[in-house]
């Protein structure tokens, strides 16, 4: 699915620069469910954003689904983000003046799908996350868990191959977190490749592999026995 070799990334800070990723090597196969862990500031989000083409690396190689991601035009990058990648953010990042259905339908709009079709498809995904009755509600009228489920439905709507989630449960209480995780596990069962950043050991253990970062390098990378959310409840 994706291959990363010797990836480096620094942020300029004043006159000097902060070396955040110091040579990352990582390979993820199709169908994996990977948790990225590490202390705050270790570069987890930076790595995920580069994988998601929201940010660019300074040097190193990144191949996504056989395509080298380097010096792409904005137009091409837009197509890849739209077709390949689905994002789930800690802060949901929904458009506040659009209702749930319209938010979910937005990536489909950028695929050029017809209005009627995309509304049907968006509704289908909203049903999947159990929010069919909330389709006409604005983000501010929904709870955190509900908003995150709208965001998941949106990430899924475009049927991406790779789902990236940066602390998807970070803003949610334990119970809601588990509901979200159960859902993400289900998606993985259906064959989606998933990469997620998390701080919580219990959430990480619900994945199939844990990559630990420290100071911009991978310190540990191990397969784990997946804990099913259903077993917790």
């Amino acid at each position: 699915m994706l291959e990363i070799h010797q990836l480096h990334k620094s942020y300029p800070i004043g006159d000097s620069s902060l070396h955040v990723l110091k040579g990352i090597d990582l390979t993820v196969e199709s169908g994996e469910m990977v948790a990225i862990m590490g202390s705050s500031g270790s570069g987890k989000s930076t790595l995920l954003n580069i994988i998601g083409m929201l940010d660019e690396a300074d040097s190193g190689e990144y191949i996504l689904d056989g395509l080298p991601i380097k010096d792409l035009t904005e137009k091409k990058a837009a197509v890849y983000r739209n077709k390949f990648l689905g994002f789930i953010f800690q802060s949901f990042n929904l458009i506040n003046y659009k209702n749930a259905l319209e938010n979910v339908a937005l990536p489909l709009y950028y695929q050029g799908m017809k209005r009627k079709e995309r509304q049907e498809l968006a509704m289908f995904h909203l049903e999947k996350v159990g929010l069919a009755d909330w389709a006409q509600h604005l983000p501010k009228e929904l709870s955190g868990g509900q908003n995150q489920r709208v965001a998941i439905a949106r990430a899924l709507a475009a049927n991406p191959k790779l789902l990236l989630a940066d602390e998807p449960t970070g803003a949610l209480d334990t119970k809601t977190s588990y509901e979200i995780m159960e859902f993400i596990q289900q998606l993985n069962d259906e064959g989606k490749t998933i990469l997620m950043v998390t701080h919580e050991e219990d959430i990480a253990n619900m994945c199939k592999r844990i990559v630990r970062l420290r100071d911009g390098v991978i310190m540990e990378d191990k397969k784990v026995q997946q804990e099913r959310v259903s077993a917790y409840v």
Partner: protein
Amino acid sequence: MFDLDLWREIFQSINKNRTRSLLSGFTVAFAILLFAILFGIANGLKNTFKEAFGDDATNSIFINSGRTTKASKGLQAGRRIQFKNEDYDYIKETYNNKVEFITGRVYKNINASFRNEQNNYSVRAVHPDHQFLEKTKIKEGRYINQNDLNNATKVVVIGRLVEEDLFLRTSALGKYINLSGIPYKVVGVFTDDGGDNEERLIYMPITTAQQVYGNNDYIDQINLTYNPELNYDQALAFSSSLVRKLKERFLVASSDQRAIRVRNLAADSKKVNQFNLALTSIILIIGFGTLIAGIVGISNIMIFIVKERTKEIGIRKALGASPRSIVSIILIESILITAIAGYVGLLIGMGVLEVVGPKLEAYFIKDPAVSTSLVISATITLIIAGGIAGYFPAKRASKIKPIVALRDD
């Protein structure tokens, strides 16, 4: 291509972000409104001055006579100077290359009647050139011509209001009007921009008046226009030469101010022109001022809007929006708001001028109005300015990395 979905996105964005839309719309509408009203008022002022000074040809010279106030060449003061046909001919011949149009005038007040209607009017007995000096517009029929003059025919050209007064709703042309007992054939009806008084006049051939009212060859006043190619200084030199020659001709002391009076409109028209120029400059400054204020306003708003939408742009980009779609959604929204608001401002401005306009005549503002095309041009200028002002920040926003835009709060 018409992209319905794009427009739907734009309308939703306008509709759901009403404060923002109203704010920018208000700025534009207000600028256009102000533009229309200020321009209208300035135009109204201009109209007032045009009416006060612009009725007669600006290269006119009026020559009047009076009584001498000084003894000269053995003649006593208090002598009456009377122009005659020969003086008219003299000027015409002497200044052949400087005179454009020339006419004599004989004034008479008469009682005119047609059937049961009657009223008092001023008669001006003139030469055919008078039409061009006075800028008389023939509505029907013709003006006095050389043939009338040669034969001293009893014909008149009457003002629109004379026709209205005496002939009620019928046409006067070809009918006979009775002037103090003598019938005259109406050969023409005229209008004049100089106001109602000018349209209550009756013109007749000068020779007719001389024959009927005194059997002499007297002329009360001589009016002429000089060759428009003369510049201001040449025009003044011409009129002083005229004064000198006439004073010599009538043996009037050169210091006598009353016996022969020549009024050169060039002196007046220079002042009017200067005033007009000043007024035009003020109009332009006001116009550009409001426009620039509008442009600055809409530019600031566009920068603000793009800033406010940065996070939304980040989200859209993360979901696969192309840079082009980002730019177009912002740009079309701003153009749409500017156009609608501009139109509203235009309607309100025109409406205000329409309603308030007539009440302003007391303040020397007559018919305040702006041409629609001018206001539309102003609106288009604002649209373009808003477009340009929106384009650059929108372009920049469309190019920033999504992660940078997403981090924006």
